[in-house]
């Protein structure tokens, strides 16, 4: 998934596939920004693993220690679709104070690369720059990378099967994370 080698030529040169993957990720970002969270949930596979690890400051080369391990350690998110559905339900109560009044989010997605294709699943890397503005003057910025596995779907083009979100922060500088990446 994190292969740094050049993607296979049948993927690299498949302009339509590259285009479809990028369009899907842009659409997903727009749904979040338009607060269409129930529609966003439709893009998630039933067997989704949604993972956003913590990041340590570590010695050069101790890369195995940098990200929290989803098998044994604590992360920001390490969950399935049912928990994410619960989070959406919570926001939609209108009394989830961390996101009430609701924020103005802009999820900017870029650097989309389809790196592999196995069966009906594709491997897609991208970057996010998420700007949050809420109440009068509160601003947060979340910036990082994502490694996704997307599965072909007749209705929504793709479903997100796996998402690994690497935020470029050690101590989280925002008081909460009340959006999705």
């Amino acid at each position: 998934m994190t292969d740094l080698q050049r993607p296979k030529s049948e993927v690299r040169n498949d302009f339509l596939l590259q285009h479809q993957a990028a369009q899907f990720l842009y659409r997903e970002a727009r749904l979040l920004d338009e607060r269409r969270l129930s529609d966003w949930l439709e893009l998630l596979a039933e067997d989704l693993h949604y993972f956003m690890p913590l990041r340590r400051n570590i010695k050069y080369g101790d890369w195995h220690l940098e990200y929290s391990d989803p098998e044994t350690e604590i992360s920001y998110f390490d969950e399935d679709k049912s928990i994410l559905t619960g989070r959406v339900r919570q926001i939609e109560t209108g009394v989830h104070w961390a996101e009430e009044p609701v924020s103005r989010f802009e999820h900017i997605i870029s650097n989309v690369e389809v790196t592999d294709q196995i069966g009906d699943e594709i491997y897609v890397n991208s970057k996010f720059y998420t700007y949050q503005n809420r109440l009068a003057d509160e601003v947060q910025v979340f910036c990082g990378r994502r490694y996704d596995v997307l599965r072909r779907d007749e209705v929504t083009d793709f479903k997100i099967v796996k998402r690994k979100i690497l935020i470029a922060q050690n101590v989280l500088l925002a008081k909460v994370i009340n959006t999705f990446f």
Partner: protein
Amino acid sequence: MDLSVRTSKGDKFLRSFIDSEKGTVNRELYINQDVFEQEMEQIYRRCWLFLGHESQLRNPGDFFVSRMGTEEVLVVRDRKDQKIRAFLNSCRHRGEKVCRYDQGNSLIFTCPFHAWTYDTSGRLVGAAGQNSPQGYAGDLKKEDWGLTEVAQFTNYYGTLWATWDKDAPSFEDYLGPFAESVRYMCEGSDGVDNGLEVFTPFQKWRVPTNWKVPAFTSSRDPEHGAMTHRSVNAAAIGPMRELQGGDRSRKRQLIENITYVCGDHNLGHGGAWTKYLAPGIAEYVDGWYEDGVDDYFREMHVKKMEKYKDRIVPPQGHDAGHFCVFPNFIMDAWRWRIWHPHEVGVVERWSLFGVDKDAPKHVKDAVRHYVMRYNGPSGATESDDMENWNYVYPASRGAVAREWDYNFANGLGHGFQEDGAPGALVFNGNRSEEAHRARFSRWLAFMEAESWDDLYPIKSDANHRLW
């Protein structure tokens, strides 16, 4: 008059910002820069502070970086004697951080500035130019230039604590009547002492507010739950997830008891306090969604019941504990929260979660996933706390807003002391703000005291109860 207890507001003294008759605290104490600077001197240099857990340092040379107030400390298990020690993370030469990693294993700590190098017991073992004829020429007395070690350090049933003050009482005396509660919180679910390890890494995040907002008044604050956490059950993040209507609380059965909020006005600790009226521990109630997790905890619980069958459990028993160890450490059973002040209006929160060290993986996984969806900056419950604690600060800072007082009067005048109970342990209704008031009794004592001679009640026979 001692200027150290003045604020920059004219000649007003700290004591005058607390009205014990009305039960109020002036907002100035939360937003004043001078007050913050004095807190770092008077409180954070003298109190016992939480550093971490021994399970983070299993092997010789293992280290992690923690905090004591606004400063970083390096906590390391020595390679030679295997003891855990804590040092200020600041090179003795020019003050650069000698360790810039969150954790790891090392033979030595070499400052990246001039190569001053310390071993895992904090001793200086080398420095650039130490033998150069044009430099120190062998005159650098290494034994005088070791890392600055904390004055006292203790491993209390697996939890690691330190103080910068050599005159502070022992940690157990510092805890006073809450010592058995801290010990109890460190038991495994089978009732065995020091039965936990902590999940790593810790969640760490910044909240733009004064440290006292969460540290002093989140334990125990029973009246915030219904409003602050109104949305939470919709998220179904409890151990039972969608079962039981998404209830965020785990079901428990309790021995007959009376529940109080209790504050120790001499020591500053306090929170929930359950007085059990009969010995023993009640039967286990199934409450986990994942297969096999209840089987494990039920089996452990039987062992714990055996241990306590003829004993009254401590007031934090039955997983019911929620209290603050003065000044900035909250124990909510095995969920531990530390509030590190950074600036007058910025606090950094660290979260630790304990779990039975010998639990099988599927149990650890269930507990781990539960705490991730419940707690922290991405936790469905705590995120709402952050919002409220945050906006207290900007909404209290203005020239008009800061003139007003916070109301700490819930239950004022209804507290009582018990015969035979330690000096200033005050019991009050289980929805009262008694523990918050106790924090301020202790806060003022620290801010006014010249030394621990004025602070440790057994020595001075003091009663710091303000209200």
